[in-house]
C-alpha cells in the first residue's frame, strides 16, 4: 500500500467512527443541539432586555454556531489523543502502519461533518426562533470564509492534540480553561472591533474563530470589522497552512518525546 493510500485509508477509517456515531446516538445529537439553543436564547433575551438592535441577536446565533466548532476542536480534536491513550487505543494507533496525521485528519473530517450537522440545526433554530434576517452580501464569499475558518480551526485542533498528549490529569482542566477566555477574546456574542482596542482585536485575529466570525459578520450583517473581509480571508488561509504544517511537525516531535518518556501507555494520570 502506498503512503497516500495508507493516509487516505486511515483518515476515512477514523472519520467513519465519528460519523457513524452520529447516527447511532440520536439522543446525544438532540442534547448537543438543544443545549446550545438554550444558551442562544439566554443571550438573545439579554440583548432584548438591553434594547439592542435586532442584528445583535444574529451575532449571538452566529456565535453559538461557531462555538460548536470550537468545542469540537477542543474536546473532539485536542483532547482526543489524550482520551485514546486513556482507553488504550493510542498505542494501537502508533503500532499500526497508519500515519498519525492520517488519524488526526480523519478525526478532523469526522468532527467537521458531525459538528456541521449540529451547527446547522442550531443556526436554523436560532434564525427561526428569533426571526434573524439572513441577507449576506455574497453566499460564495460566506462559504469560502466558513471553509477557511474550519480549515484553520481544525489545524489548530491538530496542534492541540499533539500538545495535550504531554499532559496528564491537568489536560481536562486546561481544555476547560480554553472555553470562556476564548469566547471573550473572539467575541462570540459581541463585535470585537466595537469593544477592544485595535491592537488587542488585531492580536485576537490570530485565533481563527475571531477572524472567521468577524468576516462572516461583515458579510451577513454588514457590521464594521477589525480588518477588511479580504484581509481576513487571506489571514485565515495563511493560518490554515501554518497550523497544519506546525501540527505535522509537533506531532512527530511530541510523539517521539512521548515514546522516550514512556507516556504513550500511561493512563489515569
Amino acid at each position, binding site marked *: 500500500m502506498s503512503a497516500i493510500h495508507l493516509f487516505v485509508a486511515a483518515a476515512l477509517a477514523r472519520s467513519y467512527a465519528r460519523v457513524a456515531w452520529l447516527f447511532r*446516538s440520536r*439522543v*446525544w445529537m438532540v*442534547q*448537543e443541539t*438543544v*443545549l446550545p439553543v*438554550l*444558551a442562544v*436564547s*439566554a*443571550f438573545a*433575551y*439579554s*440583548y*432584548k*432586555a*438591553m*434594547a*439592542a*438592535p435586532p442584528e*445583535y441577536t444574529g451575532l449571538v446565533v452566529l456565535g453559538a454556531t461557531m462555538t460548536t466548532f470550537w468545542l469540537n476542536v477542543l474536546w473532539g480534536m485536542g483532547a482526543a489523543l489524550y482520551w485514546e491513550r*486513556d*482507553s488504550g487505543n493510542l498505542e494501537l494507533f502508533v503500532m499500526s502502519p497508519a500515519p498519525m496525521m492520517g488519524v488526526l485528519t480523519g478525526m478532523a473530517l469526522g468532527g467537521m461533518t458531525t459538528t456541521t450537522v449540529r451547527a446547522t440545526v442550531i443556526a436554523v433554530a436560532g434564525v427561526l426562533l428569533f426571526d434573524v434576517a439572513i441577507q449576506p452580501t455574497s453566499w460564495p464569499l460566506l462559504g469560502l470564509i466558513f471553509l477557511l475558518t474550519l480549515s484553520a480551526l481544525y489545524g489548530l485542533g491538530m496542534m492541540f492534540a499533539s500538545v495535550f498528549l504531554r499532559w*496528564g*490529569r*491537568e489536560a481536562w*482542566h486546561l481544555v*476547560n*480553561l480554553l*472555553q*470562556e*477566555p476564548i*469566547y*471573550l477574546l473572539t*467575541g*462570540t*456574542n*459581541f*463585535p470585537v472591533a*466595537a*469593544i477592544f482596542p485595535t491592537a488587542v482585536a488585531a492580536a485576537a485575529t490570530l485565533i481563527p474563530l475571531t477572524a472567521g466570525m468577524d468576516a462572516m459578520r461583515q458579510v451577513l450583517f454588514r457590521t464594521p470589522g477589525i480588518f477588511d473581509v479580504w484581509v481576513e480571508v487571506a489571514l485565515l488561509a495563511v493560518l490554515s497552512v501554518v497550523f497544519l504544517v506546525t501540527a505535522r511537525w509537533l506531532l512527530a516531535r511530541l510523539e517521539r518525546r512521548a515514546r522516550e518518556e514512556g507516556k504513550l501507555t500511561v493512563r*489515569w494520570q
Partner: protein
Amino acid sequence: MREQLRTLRLAAWLGWQLETNWASPWLFAIYMVIKPVTGSLMLVCMFYAARATFAGGPPEGFQQFLPYLYVSNACFGLVGTVTFGLSYAVVTDRERYRMLKYVFLSPAHFQTYFAGRGLARVAEGTVGAVLNIAVGLLLFADMRQTMGDAGIDWLWLAVFLGIGVVMLWAAGMVLAGACLNLSRNGMFLSEGISGVVYLLSGVVFPIGVLPPWVQWVGLSLPTTYWLEGMRRALMGPGPASAPVLRGPLAAWSNAELATMLLATTAALVVFALWFWRWNERRAWRLGKLEENAGV
C-alpha cells in the same frame, strides 16, 4: 453519626484534592479566577456593545444592567459548580477511576460520600464566586457604586447562601442519582438542567422579559428565588430607575423570598433523599455501579 461525619470529612478532602492537586497552587489560583471572570467579562462586553448602539446615550437606569449581569453570573457559577460537579463525581468515579463499586463496598455510607464530594465543589464554587465579584468591584465603577450605595446585607446574604447551598446540593444529588443509572447521557442531563436554569432563572436578563407563560416555569424553579435573594443581599432591591430589571418578584419582601426558597428547598431535599436511594438500589440490582461505558 461519627462514622457519617468521618465519611463526609474524608470525601470532602478527596473531592478537594481531585479538584486542586492537578496543578501548583499558583496555577490553580489563576484557573479559579480566569474561568469565572472571563465568563462575566463576556457579559460585560455584551453590555458595552448594546450601550454603544444608543445614538443619544443610553436610557436612564441602563447602567444598572452591568451589576445585574455581573453579580447574577457570579452567583450562577455556584449552581454549575455544585450541580454539575456531583454528577461529574459519579461519572469519573465509575468510568475513569473505576472506584465507584469499591466505595459502595466500603463501610462508608454511599450517599454521605457524595455529599462530601459535593461540599468540596461548594467550597470551590464559593471561592470562585467571591473572587469573581472582587474582580468586578475592582474593575467597574458601576459595581462599586451599586454595591456601595446599597451596602451588602450580610444577614440576608448568610440566609440566602445557607439555604441556597442546601438547595444546590439537593439538586446535585438528584442529578447524581440519575447518573447512577445513566451510562452515557448523565453528563448531558446535568448540562441540560444547568442550561434551563440559566435561561429561566433570570441570570442574564430579568425574567419579566420572557413571555408570561414561560415566566411561570421560571417561577417554579428554586434557583429563581435564590438568585433574586442573592442579588438583593449584595446590591439591594432593583432600582426604580430601571423598571425592566424589576421582574415579577420585585414586590416580594426578603422574608417572603427566603420562605419560598426554604419551602422549595425542603421539598427538593426530601425528593433528593428518596430519589438517590431509589437510584442507588436500582443501579445495584442492575449492575450499573461497575458498568463501564467508555465515556
